[in-house]
């Protein structure tokens, strides 16, 4: 089975994510069924417009995603999908995140162009299993501090200040950048995530 469930949030531009997994020989499918999203072998939460709109669109599926991340089931979240794992965002003060990662997303500050649109250097820490250092494509105005809970490994990037580029824990991978738009480097990262998902499945069976 090569199925990859892409969480249907209604507002996300998912075509690039779908195309990337098709190129890797997978069968991506949009899905908004809570049970499937809780139990599926591979789930991707793509990035969307604003924090509040994304949180609203996610609705009760947030709890299902939270559950699978706590259970360390293979999950990939992208761009705003990473910020949704935090406690909240300055962008939408009343919307609550999933509180898996500490802190709130804040707007970039200092003498930098916003949004951050383009390629930037990712530095992966030595404890990363999936993430490697390299150059990734970003499209974001808000970012998280480079801090992760115990048990997570992380990568960071500089845009005026250091921020959380990505973090991982087993087959759970959350990226602020867009791996699906990050050329060969991004495709290799997606392949490593798929490989990690496969070993997880083998162990679970």
């Amino acid at each position, binding site marked *: 089975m090569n199925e990859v469930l892409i969480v249907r949030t209604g*507002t996300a*531009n998912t*075509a690039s994510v779908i*195309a990337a997994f098709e190129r890797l020989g997978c069968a991506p499918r949009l899905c908004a069924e809570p049970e499937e999203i809780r139990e599926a072998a591979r789930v991707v939460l793509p990035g969307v417009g604003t924090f509040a709109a994304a949180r609203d669109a996610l609705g009760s599926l947030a709890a299902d995603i939270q559950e699978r991340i706590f259970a360390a089931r293979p999950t990939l979240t992208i761009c705003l999908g990473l910020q949704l794992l935090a406690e909240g965002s300055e962008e939408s003060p009343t919307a609550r995140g999933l509180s898996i990662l500490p802190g709130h997303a804040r707007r970039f500050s200092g003498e930098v*162009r916003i949004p951050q649109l*383009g*390629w930037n250097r990712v530095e992966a820490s030595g404890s990363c299993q999936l993430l490697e250092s390299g150059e990734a494509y970003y499209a974001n105005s808000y970012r998280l501090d480079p801090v992760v809970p115990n048990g997570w490994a992380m990568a960071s990037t500089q845009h005026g200040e250091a921020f959380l580029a990505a973090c991982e824990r087993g087959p759970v991978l959350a990226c602020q950048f867009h791996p699906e738009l990050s050329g*060969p480097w991004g495709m290799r990262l997606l392949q490593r995530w798929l490989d990690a998902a496969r070993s997880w499945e083998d162990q679970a069976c």
Partner: protein
Amino acid sequence: MLMPRVIPCLDVRDGRVVKGVQFQGLRDAGDPVALAQAYQEQGADELVLLDVSATPEGRANATETVAAVRAALALPLTVGGGVRVADDAARLLDAGADKVAVNTAAVQRPALLEELAARFGSQCTVLAIDAGVRAGTEEFGQGWEVVTHSGKQRPGQDAVRWAREAERRGAGEILLTSWDRDGTRSGYDLDLLRAACGAVSLPVIASGGADTPQHMAEALGAGASAVLAASIFHDQDMSVDDVKAALQALGVRLRRDSTSSRSQGTQP
């Protein structure tokens, strides 16, 4: 540090890439998917696809072209041409665009920028400005005015002020084309770039007039976040990687990831 982008531009009409000077005398320059793939392999940082179809039939084809390019492309793709309402943008995003560029329709109805930013986010909303040199008048000094309808109209709007207004209305990026330089290969309009980059904190893509890596380095020096070119690449004078190597030699720090000269990924 964010790296400057080198962006090949595909002007597409009825499913084929075309080129011409100021949209006059269009010539066929190839298949969009084949060109997109070639530029990706050469290490392009992003692609811009502008639909210059003149007819509704051509427009319908453009959506298919976007989908076909997307299937092959692991890079950001900006698509523009004929976007008048948010639903037009939604169609292009569904087909595989990552960002949507608007031009004439936003000049006519600036609220379009707010609608796009609210529905898809600023990072998805690109304002394309065609700017033509304006002779000094009593009201305005010398500067640049907005050119619309593929050069046919000049509604009398200052291009730099329009960029600033677009930022306030939620645009996330400015694709700034010098109408006077476009297709001439005489270099970007650096004064225009300096004026626009100083007026907004958004990233600005320099467009119109590129012939050499030196021109591109000058545009980046003038504040541009990215340089767009068509003729250089379509004419196969230089590959994207040739251009990037030359830019590196000029001291520009950028990403090199072509299949011909792949930088080694750092292994943990």
